[in-house]
């Protein structure tokens, strides 16, 4: 039986509120299906399942706020077939990951005692299925239930059970320690009196105030923890502009390309070649990412910002990248982001577009290790083949994590992006 859990949708997320079930018990689901909608500080996020099978049971009621990692539903996977008559006895080694990864608690939270780093079990029962499962902490069901009821993040508890698993007693101790340390616990128990009727249809909305709080938490953490270094590079993008206007001239508006798509593709290709800028810094070490999922910084009307992932941006042809980017921006602005898009970016691109100013110095979104900024294009006198002429010039910047890379590598990475933009037809 697979557990469908409250995913971690970013380093700053501690809990989410289940606001909509899109499946019922008995429904067939397959990997990638959207099964629930969760309200977070970043707005309503659509959550996909990473399992294929049948929904056995929904474990969490609507409008209940639960910590990251809490099982929301049970999914009987195809391999398991029919349900067992008796619930399985408490197993010491469920499919588990090293603790405190995706569900890494953001500050302000309970200090994590060193012992909380639960060692991985000797042999996971089956391969890790999903990023969602990365937040899994070894714990007994009773411990998990108690922690869920009391809103305690299991990743903050030191386990004393088999293989470091968290027991009921560990949670009790954790609760006792946590009580004074969490003045305004963001994780509230369900409040039955305020429950709206379950039939209520959710209207996607963006809570800009909550989004501001989330941005503040992530950026404060970034500035506190990440030793940034900054590089900038002026790039002649005349070739890109010419190529775009030639390409778009014969296309209807639906299939026209924007400069932003070229920039994302160039960054994605460069990131594949320079892995030190693509991945996560967690648990005091850098984990290069095997795929390139570019976070696209998207401004929200009224003052908000989100940077959801464009998955596998390095592998997509430009046309597909453009239509996926268009869809991503539209959904983000309408408050319909998917969970994997929030959690997966391995590097971020922030582009000011046609208006505004020439240079943007980005702040890295933890646990990522780099952000590429792109100012607006301006026409400047430029020397090409020994003659001065007007050229369209964009200032690219790189903010990168000095714990992972140095300016020398950063310069090569940024220069590579500039080179790639000289041959837009090859992107």
């Amino acid at each position, binding site marked *: 039986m697979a557990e469908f859990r409250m995913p971690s949708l970013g380093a700053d997320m501690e809990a989410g509120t289940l606001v909509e079930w899109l499946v019922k018990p008995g429904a067939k689901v397959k990997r990638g299906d959207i099964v629930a909608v969760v309200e977070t500080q970043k707005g309503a996020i659509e959550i996909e399942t990473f399992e294929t099978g049948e929904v056995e049971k929904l474990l969490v009621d609507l409008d209940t706020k639960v910590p990251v990692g809490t099982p929301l539903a049970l999914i009987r996977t195809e391999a398991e077939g029919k349900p067992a008559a008796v619930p399985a006895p408490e197993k010491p080694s469920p499919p588990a990951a090293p603790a405190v990864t995706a569900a890494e608690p953001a500050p302000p939270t309970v200090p994590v005692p060193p012992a909380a780093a639960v060692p991985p079990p000797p042999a996971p029962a089956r391969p890790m299925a999903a990023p969602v499962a990365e937040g899994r902490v070894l714990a007994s069901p009773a411990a998990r239930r108690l922690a869920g009821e009391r809103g305690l993040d299991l990743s903050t508890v030191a386990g004393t059970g088999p293989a470091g698993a968290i027991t009921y007693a560990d949670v009790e101790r954790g609760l006792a320690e946590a009580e004074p340390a969490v003045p305004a616990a963001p994780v509230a128990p369900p409040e039955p009196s305020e429950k709206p009727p379950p039939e209520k249809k959710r209207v996607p909305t963006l809570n800009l105030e909550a989004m501001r709080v989330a941005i503040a938490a992530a950026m404060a953490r970034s500035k506190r923890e990440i030793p940034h270094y900054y590089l900038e590079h002026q790039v002649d993008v005349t070739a890109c502009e010419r190529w775009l206007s030639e390409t*778009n001239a014969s296309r209807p*508006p639906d299939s026209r390309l*924007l400069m*932003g798509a070229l920039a994302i593709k160039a960054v994605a290709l460069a990131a594949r070649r320079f892995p030190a800028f693509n991945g996560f810094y967690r648990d005091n070490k850098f984990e290069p990412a095997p795929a390139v999922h570019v976070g696209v910084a998207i*401004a929200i009307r009224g003052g908000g910002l989100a940077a959801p992932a464009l998955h596998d941006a390095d592998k997509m042809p430009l046309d597909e990248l453009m239509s996926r980017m268009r869809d991503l921006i539209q959904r983000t602005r309408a408050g319909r982001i998917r969970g994997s898009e929030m959690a997966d970016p391995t590097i971020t691109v922030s582009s000011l577009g046609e*208006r505004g100013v020439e240079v943007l110095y980005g702040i890295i979104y933890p646990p990522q290790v780099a952000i590429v900024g792109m100012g607006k294009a301006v026409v400047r006198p430029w020397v090409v083949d020994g003659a001065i002429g007007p050229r369209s010039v964009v200032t690219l910047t790189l903010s990168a994590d000095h714990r992972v890379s140095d300016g020398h590598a950063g310069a090569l990475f940024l220069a590579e992006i500039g080179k790639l933009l000289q041959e837009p037809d090859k992107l």
Partner: protein
Amino acid sequence: MSDVDIRKAVEEELNNIAPEIDLTAVSPKADLREALDIDSMDFLNFITAIHHRLGIDIPELDYPKLVTLEGAVGYLTAHRKAAKD
């Protein structure tokens, strides 16, 4: 389709992108990108919506003619007539 209908189409499509803006308070000569705070993706979506709604082809080269309310309505009216003739 009259000038009034074209104006209505332009205003409705802009309102879809910038719902909080009162277009009656926007100068007909103001740059929409500034007045409505719309970026290149918003503008492309606007052009796409107008293209589908009015069936008028708007090449990228003509974008600068559509960046004000007055310009957009004038351009679309002229091209609507040209398409009919």
